[in-house]
Each structure stands twice: as C-alpha cells, then as structure tokens.
C-alpha cells in the first residue's frame, strides 16, 4: 500500500473560490476516473482536490493528483484495503474532511470502478457529505457481461449517492467520426464526462449570481428512478448566446432535443465572464424553454473571471428511466442500504407515481399506539413486518409495469392508425395527460 499524503491534517485543499461557497473533493476511481481527473487537471482544476484510487500503482504514480490510494491487486483479495475492510472507508472519510461535496468519477463495467465507486460514495455519505456520482457505462460492443456488471454497479451507486449522472459510452459513437481511433474515442468520452463535472462544479461553486440550490440539484439528479442526461457547450464570439444553444441541442446526449421534451425537470447553468449580459442569459433560456415547454426548468447563472468573451452552458435533464427489469433490481438494492435518507425509502411505486418534489411527504397525523407485548414478541413481529415489506416491494415493482401498459392503451381508437407526431409529441395521446393536468 503506497500513499503519498503530504497534508494528512484537516484543512484540506479546496477548489474554487474560498469565499465560503461549497468545497469539493473529487474521487477518481479506476483507470477511467484517472483519465477524467487528468483531463480536469489540464483544464485548470487544482491537483490537490483530487483523490485517485487505482489498483495499478504505476498508473497512480504518473498522475499529478496529490492524494493517491493504491488498491490491492485482484490477486491479493482480502488484503488491507479490500472490499470488506474498514480501513478504506475511514481513510476516505478522513480525506473528505473540510469538503462539502464529493464527486465520485468512475467508469463502470470494469473491476475497480464498479466495485469501489459505491464504496467511496457510501463512505462520503457516512461522513455527512453530499456525494454525486459521475460515471460512464461501457460501449455496447463490450459485451453483456460488462454491461450487466456496469448496471449492478450503477444501481449500487444510485442506492448510496445523492445523485448519479451517467454517460453511456455508446452515445459517444454518434459524436465521433467513422475512423476515430479507440484511444481518441475514450478521450472524447472522458472529455464529455469532464465537461459535465466542470459544469456541475461551476454550478455549485462559482457563487453564482442566480444560485442553484443543492436541493434542486439533488431533486434533479437524485431519486432512484431518475436517469440524467447532460450536455455542455462552450462558445465564444459575438453571437455566442445563439450558437451555444445550437451546439447544446446538437449534443448527442440530447437526442436532438427529444430528451428535453420528455424530461421531468431540466437544470441549466450559464457561466460567462464579466461581460455576460442579461440579454444573453435571457436568449439562452428562451431557446431552451422553447424546447421544454411543459417541463420545470431550474436555472443558474454565474460569473467567472477567467471567462473573458466565453459563454458556457451546462444542461442536465432528468427523465424517468425506461421500465421493466432494472426496477426490480433497484428495489432490492435500496432495501439493503439501511443508511439511506428517508426519501429513498419510499417504495418504488410511490416514487414512480409522485413527482420527486412531492415525495417528501409529511407523516400521517394519526399515530397508532404501540402494542403492548414482550421484548421477544416485538422483535418477532418486527422481523415479520420487515419480511413483509420486502415482499411488497417486489410486488409493487411488478405493479408498476402494469401501470405503464395502461399508458399504451390510452391511445384508444387511434391505437392502430398512423401516429400523429408533432415536434416529438404523439398528439394521439390525450392532451391533458401529456401536459400533466391532474383531474382530482
């Protein structure tokens, strides 16, 4: 185990201005994490805000990051920093001290990232910080084994982290040219992840003029059913406010704006230099709003001194995850994590039916008096109840599928006719359902 800790003591390095705004620690797990970290450091992030976790000591040594944790190679399972040990979480907690945010960057599907990213996030949560995951999912061609592994890793991470932004690498394929080398492809993917990380950290750290509150961010990318898509664009020049939106909408992650229309909530962060004009912010927001008319949009703006003549927009859109399979899985995972916030303990069905803002439900006023019984009997009863809830969860996940089928039936008499698609919306579905009007 090799560590190069220069300053083990508490006041830990921070990124961003030290004017009391949030401070961040970035944990880069595995090779992909290290690559993204390298990208970020080249982009001006202070190397002392990074913690690298890797099995490959040689790779660790190459990085400029100050904090490095060398994980045991696979063959030495059960060694000091193995999965089961308590040393790793405690070290992570120590490294987290002084920060407010923890970003966990990893590529899922491999070994290190998949295994350790949830561990890091969990440790950070235990230390009382806000943990956000930024992960990539493997390419389709990498095979089903990796995909499955990545999926379980993602579920595990979602269960512990406050929010996860994930980039399916397959989407990068649309970005690159036919004959791009493998190396460059991964570079593009890492670059994208670095972009969004930069955007999010800017969002929370720049001490924005129009703040995006932590709760907004968590509402957006948190929540077990949510899957976030993101896009970031940076443009300079006189016509930047128009160009930046164009560039943003051309982003492959947004599927030509389709994602925006189907999004549950959209978060937009605009960062510019001192010359950032109100009209520009206005123009950007107007254009974004046009694409997601019926979707709540959270907006933030900040001024960064280093942004002379440049304008960067980061967009995060959360959408309901596609139904079936994974839902069941996530229910199981979430029931394991006992230290989750109460919001996560809502059953799947409820979080599916209610919007994230309403899931914070006040407790019922009526509280039944506790039954009088012996200690033994109570424990037995509790155990029974726990078992029962476990079963119900599985049942409810199935019930949700039934609900989704109803949605398909709702086209009624137009079921078999050619759909009327207008700007990505299927007009055959009742208007009030598409607009989310509730008939009480």
């Amino acid at each position: 185990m090799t560590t190069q800790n220069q300053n083990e003591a508490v006041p830990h390095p921070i990124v961003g201005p030290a004017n009391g705004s949030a401070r961040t620690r970035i944990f880069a797990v595995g090779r992909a994490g290290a690559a993204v970290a390298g990208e970020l450091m080249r982009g001006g992030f202070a190397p002392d805000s990074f913690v690298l976790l890797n099995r490959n000591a040689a790779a660790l040594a190459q990085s400029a990051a100050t904090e490095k944790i060398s994980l045991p190679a696979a063959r030495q399972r059960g060694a000091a920093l193995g999965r089961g040990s308590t040393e790793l979480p405690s070290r992570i907690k120590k490294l987290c001290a002084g920060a407010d945010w923890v970003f966990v960057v990893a590529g899922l599907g491999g070994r290190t990232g998949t295994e350790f990213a949830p561990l890091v996030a969990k440790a950070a949560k235990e230390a009382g910080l806000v943990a956000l995951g930024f992960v990539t999912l493997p390419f389709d061609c990498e095979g089903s084994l990796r995909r499955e592994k990545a999926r379980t890793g993602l579920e595990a991470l979602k269960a512990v982290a406050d929010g996860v932004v994930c980039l399916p690498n397959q989407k990068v394929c649309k970005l690159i040219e036919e004959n791009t080398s493998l190396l460059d492809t991964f570079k593009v993917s890492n670059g994208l992840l670095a972009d969004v990380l930069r955007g999010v950290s800017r969002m929370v750290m720049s001490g924005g003029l129009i703040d995006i509150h932590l709760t907004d961010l968590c509402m957006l990318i948190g929540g077990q059913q949510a899957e976030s898509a993101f896009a970031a664009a940076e443009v300079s020049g006189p016509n930047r406010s128009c160009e930046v939106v164009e560039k943003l909408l051309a982003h492959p992650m947004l599927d030509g704006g389709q994602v925006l229309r189907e999004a549950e909530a959209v978060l937009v962060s605009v960062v510019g230099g001192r010359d950032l004009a109100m009209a520009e912010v206005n123009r950007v927001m107007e254009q974004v709003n046009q694409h997601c008319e019926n979707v709540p949009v959270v907006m933030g703006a900040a001024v960064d001194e280093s942004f002379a003549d440049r304008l960067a927009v980061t967009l995060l859109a959360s959408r309901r995850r596609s139904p079936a399979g994974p839902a069941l899985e996530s229910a199981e995972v979430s029931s394991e994590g006992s230290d989750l916030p109460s919001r996560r303990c809502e059953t799947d069905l409820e979080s599916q039916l209610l919007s994230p803002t309403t899931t914070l439900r006040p407790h019922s006023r009526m509280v039944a008096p506790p039954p009088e019984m012996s200690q033994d009997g109570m424990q037995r009863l509790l155990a029974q109840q726990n078992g029962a809830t476990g079963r119900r969860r599985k049942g409810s996940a199935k019930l949700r599928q039934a609900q989704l089928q109803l949605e398909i039936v709702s086209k009624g008499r137009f079921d078999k006719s050619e759909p009327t698609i207008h700007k990505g919306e299927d007009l055959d579905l009742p208007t009030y359902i598409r607009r989310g009007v509730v008939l009480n």
Partner: protein
Amino acid sequence: MFDPSSIIVGLEIGTSKVCAAVGELNPDMSGLNVIGVGQARSRGVRKGEIVDAQLAEEDVRNAVVEAEQMADVEIRSVFLGVTGSHLRGFNNRGVHPVVSADREITEEDVQDAVKNAKVINLPAQNRILHAIRQHFYVDGQGGIANPAGMLGARLEVDVHVMHGNENRLKNSIRTVKGLQLEVDDVVFNGVASSLALLTNEAKEIGALVIDLGAGTTDYTVYTEGVIKHTGVLAVGGDHVTNDLAYGLKVPLSRAEQLKIEHGSALLDDDCKGRTITISNELGLPLKTVNLEHLRRIMSLRVEEIFQVVAEDVQQAGLSDYLRAGVFLSGGGARIPEVARLAEQVFQTPVSIGKTNSVSGLKCALDQPEFATAIGLVKFGSFKHKSRAAKVNFIKDTLGQLFRRG
C-alpha cells in the same frame, strides 16, 4: 329537365360523415345554386383517410343517393375532396424567359412559367395535387395578377404547390370510381372550405380558414387574394371523444354523446363541481361524470389544435396578415365557445364561417359541416366556367373564320 352539364357535385368523404352537395349553375353562368345535399355516417375512415374501402363505398353510395333524391338529378361525376396527414403544401417560384421577338408575354409563356414552378423534388411516391398561382413577376416587378399581353423579358410566378402520397390519394378516387361515378377533379378539403366561406374581400385582406373535422384539421391562409399557406393536422373531433373516453372512463359512443351534449371549448365558473348523471334507457342512473373534468379535457385538446395551427401560421410568417380574422368550419365549429377560445389563441376576431358566395338551400348553407362539400361545388363551378369560356372562345373564332370565308 336540367342541362346535365350545369350540374356540379361536391363529394367529401369525411371521418364522421360522407357529404355530397349538388349545385346548379344558372343558365347565364352568373350564379350557383345549391339544390341538394346528402349525407351518411362514415364508418370506413380514420384521420381523413379510408381504412375500410367497402364500408366507405357503401357510405358514399348512401350519401350520393340521398343527394340525388333531394336534388332530383342523376349524379354522374363529382369533385372529390381529400385530406390526410400526407398532404403537404409549400410555395415555389417558376421562371420562364420570354423569347418572342416583340417580348410580348403570351398565354403559353404563362403556362410554361407555371409548369416550371411545378418542377420540384418530390418523393418518388408523391404527386402534385394542386399548383395554385399566386402572383406573377415581370422583369422583377411584382404583384401582377395576369401578365398575358404585357411586355417583358423574364416572367416569374409564385405558386402554392400541394402534394401528397399518390397511392393514398388514389384510394378515395378508386372508392368513388367503384360506384360508377366519374371524378372530375381532386381538391384539398381545406381549399374547398375556404372557397365556400371567404368573400373576395376577406381573401384580399387576409384570412385563415380552419376546418375542424372529426379526423383532421385542415387550414388555409389567404392574403392578397391568393392562397399563401395550407396545412393538415391529423387531429380532430375524434381525438376529443377519445380523450373524454379515456379521461372520464366511459365508452367511446358515450363520450361522443357527452361531447355533443355537454361539451364546451372554455371552462366557465358555473361548471365547477357540477356533475352529469348518465342514465340508461330505463332512466336508471349508471354513472356520474364531473362536468369540469369533461370541459377541461375538451378545452385542452381544442386549444392545443389551435395552438399547433397558430404556431404553423406564425412560422410561415403570416400571423400578422390575418386582418379579416379566422373563420371556423366543420363539425368542430359547433362546439360552444369555440370562437372565444380561438380568439384567445390567435388574438384576432374569429367567426363561425357562413357560406356566402352561393345561394340555394338555406338549411345547407348555414351549417358549418357542409362548407367543404359546398366549397367543392364552388371549385367545380370555376372549372366549369373556364371550360365553358374556352369552348365559347373556340366557337367564336371558328365562327369568325367561317364568316370571313
């Protein structure tokens, strides 16, 4: 009893009904009289296009027979109205150099310019339905209505081209031909209704005609006396019914009945909390539905239709030219308060269209549902007049020749 050549029939195969209107040209070609209408419930049509040819054929026969009886004529040929989401309209410009020595623009030059304007890249399976002349330009000078006889070197013409999928257009033609009826011409429903509703003045100062059908919403924009924009939205009254059936959890037939009896395009205060009790034929209550929900579902759908149309017109850059306002026709124009809702969306005066330009059966002319069929008759009368004019022209010139000889 009638001169068969002066009988013009318009046939619209709609989604909710098939409608045939019989018109008679006055002997002096000055006026048009509607002398009979026939209609039948349509069962074989969805979203304006035939999905069951057999049923559609039966319904067309019923409607035509009814119209024949009412007008007491035999119908041999019809002007057929078509619609459907496959129809597209756009503006195109054709150029033709005038080559004659004296630079006089002849009728052939005009025809050639229009022909050139029709040369466009269409998908292989599409064909042109209409190419409607807008204005001519002679040597760059615009706003010329009829350049024949003028002098110039370069003749340009703007046309509004409508095209659609050939096979889908032929479906309805085949259905009519299956009944031993000739099809004189095929006309877009939206154009037909606008012909019936708009006066020349309204066309001149700018108007939008929206035909709110059961299956489709067809719309046409006129400015400066010519058609500038057309469109089809495959959403209509059936969608309202479908939404109600889904939202109120009642069968489609019941939803249709509720829509007709209790529907409204706007929510007013006094419908809050009111309920409607549906009872069966014995008078026993079956179900109660909330009136507010009914109207809200309906209002949202109708509003959305208007919004989509308004957006399209806006994109075509024509929303500021609708100085005569918006005219509504079709069954959807019967929805209470629909004009007020449309006013809110379009921010212009909105009226329910009345067929002004023809005379005849009062009961037929006042109904917004018949606007398309009557418009088809009107379209037919134009064709008829131009054909008659040509015949007369030939007769005259031949006569002169012989007289000279």
